[in-house]
């Protein structure tokens, strides 16, 4: 009895701290947004584009600070601007997309580094890179919520078109839909998502949150709706557990979230009933036995 009570106390003790409860719900919200987008990104094969946007927001954050405007506006402008630059360079040269992406995002990122070291500010580069949800300010939470809700609304309203765009952009054109608009809708919601996740996961780790939940869902289901549900569940669970455990273990919150998420992915990859490695191995063995 006493032991149980002690364990219970140990478990709930951190939850009495307001900053931790706040960190948990903020990161759960971010996890939800990222999971929704991740389904489209993995199906479209745009993870590299996500990487590009997330790095390109850095100069935006610094410029926004220097001008005294909300960081989300600067970050979004530069993140989205990078995708426009990538699209433009790709259409005007014979370079392959991955080369263009590599050039543009490192260019933006390096520019951000230069600015951070030149412009005097209290921006902590470490926080931009790896997130700082435990110390998140109310203002930052508001910006995260706004960016997140806009993303959710856009995806909710356009989800069928976006799915069609990922699956068969030619058909979308054939029925007279504007695929250019869809292209930029998906890119800008991606940029908004990264802005929302900036304070929680940081620009390095946000890629994991934009790719892994969708991949877990994809390995577990053949239907988009189910894939989406699984992605959201695993992402939100990871964010809640990751944040909570980071307190107990006294480790980086962003790191702990992503490690948890990656563990879920590894489990899925091995044990998924249809597309897991074990199942594939068994199937091969069966074929051999059948012969």
């Amino acid at each position: 009895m006493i032991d149980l009570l002690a364990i219970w106390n140990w478990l709930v003790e951190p939850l009495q701290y307001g900053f931790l409860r706040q960190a948990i719900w903020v990161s759960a919200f971010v996890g939800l947004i990222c999971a929704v987008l991740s389904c489209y990104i993995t199906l479209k094969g745009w993870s590299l584009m996500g990487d590009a946007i997330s790095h390109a927001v850095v100069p935006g954050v610094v410029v926004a600070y220097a001008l005294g405007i909300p960081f989300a506006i600067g970050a979004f402008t530069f993140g989205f601007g990078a995708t426009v630059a990538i699209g433009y360079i790709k259409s005007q040269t014979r370079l392959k997309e991955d080369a263009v992406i590599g050039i543009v995002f490192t260019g933006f990122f390096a520019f951000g580094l230069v600015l951070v070291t030149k412009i005097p500010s209290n921006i902590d580069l470490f926080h931009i890179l790896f997130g700082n949800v435990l110390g998140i300010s109310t203002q930052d939470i508001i910006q995260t919520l706004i960016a997140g809700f806009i993303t959710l609304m856009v995806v909710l309203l356009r989800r069928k078109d976006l799915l069609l765009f990922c699956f068969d952009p030619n058909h979308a054109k054939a029925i007279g839909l504007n695929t250019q608009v869809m292209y930029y809708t998906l890119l800008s919601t991606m940029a908004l998502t990264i802005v929302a996740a900036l304070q929680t996961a940081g620009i390095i780790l946000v890629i994991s949150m934009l790719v892994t939940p969708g991949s877990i869902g994809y390995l577990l289901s053949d239907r988009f709706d189910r894939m989406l549900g699984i992605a959201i569940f695993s992402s939100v669970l990871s964010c809640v557990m990751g944040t909570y455990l980071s307190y107990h273990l006294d480790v980086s919150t962003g790191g702990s979230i992503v490690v948890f998420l990656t563990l879920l992915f590894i489990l899925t990859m091995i044990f998924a009933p249809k597309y897991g490695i074990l199942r594939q191995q068994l199937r091969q063995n069966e074929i051999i036995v059948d012969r």
Partner: protein
Amino acid sequence: MQTTTQALDITVDNLSITYSNARLALYNAYCRVESGTITGLVGPNGGGKSTLFKAIMGFLQPSQGRIRVGDFPVLKAQKRQLMAYVPQSDEVDWNFPVSVFDVVMMGRYGYMNFLRIPSAKDRRLVMESLERVGMSEFRHHQIGELSGGQKKRAFLARALAQEGKVILLDEPFTGVDVKTEKRIIDLMMQLRDEGHTILVSTHDLASISTFCDRTILLNRTILASGTTEETFTEENLTMTFGGLPVMSLQQMFAKSEVDV
């Protein structure tokens, strides 16, 4: 809506297509796909059949030339749901998490409201289209779980659901058994009789004369076009699949002008 009841032709006028790798895939192509016919498009691998299809559908921007569907430019025709396209199998991501029903429903998106919520009519037409190609029982399958012939029929059903007046089919017979081929041909003939214009590319030369009213021979440009009887000759085929001697090319241009 007079335009949707009458058959539409396709006019390709001096079309050239250059890919981004600076390769000229199609040059100075002139042809007309007559309304209310089945027109076969024949040419060697890499001859530019898919390229011509994609240009007609507006997926590729021509470096020169003009395409019209009936009296409309392509974009207008598409906005009016006049043009349906059945892609070559290797253009589809078969691992995508959608069911056959979902795919066929995508044929109806152009008729739906902003949120793409299917109406009773949309559902009915999807079910009818599936029925027509014999795929109703597979409607809940993920698209990758289908055989080659079933995949073709699923995408054909999408074109039916779209109710396009002009239907372009890129190699619907590859990887398809005789029975399914017969079934697809029958369906195309029914559609033609209902007033659709059908352009179909194929490598199955044996069956062309059984169902194509007209034939277009293509190897990087249009080498011949006209009724199947006139066009589908051994001489023309040798020229299309053999080399491309300049002399006979000029002859062909002279000849096809006479034909048209």
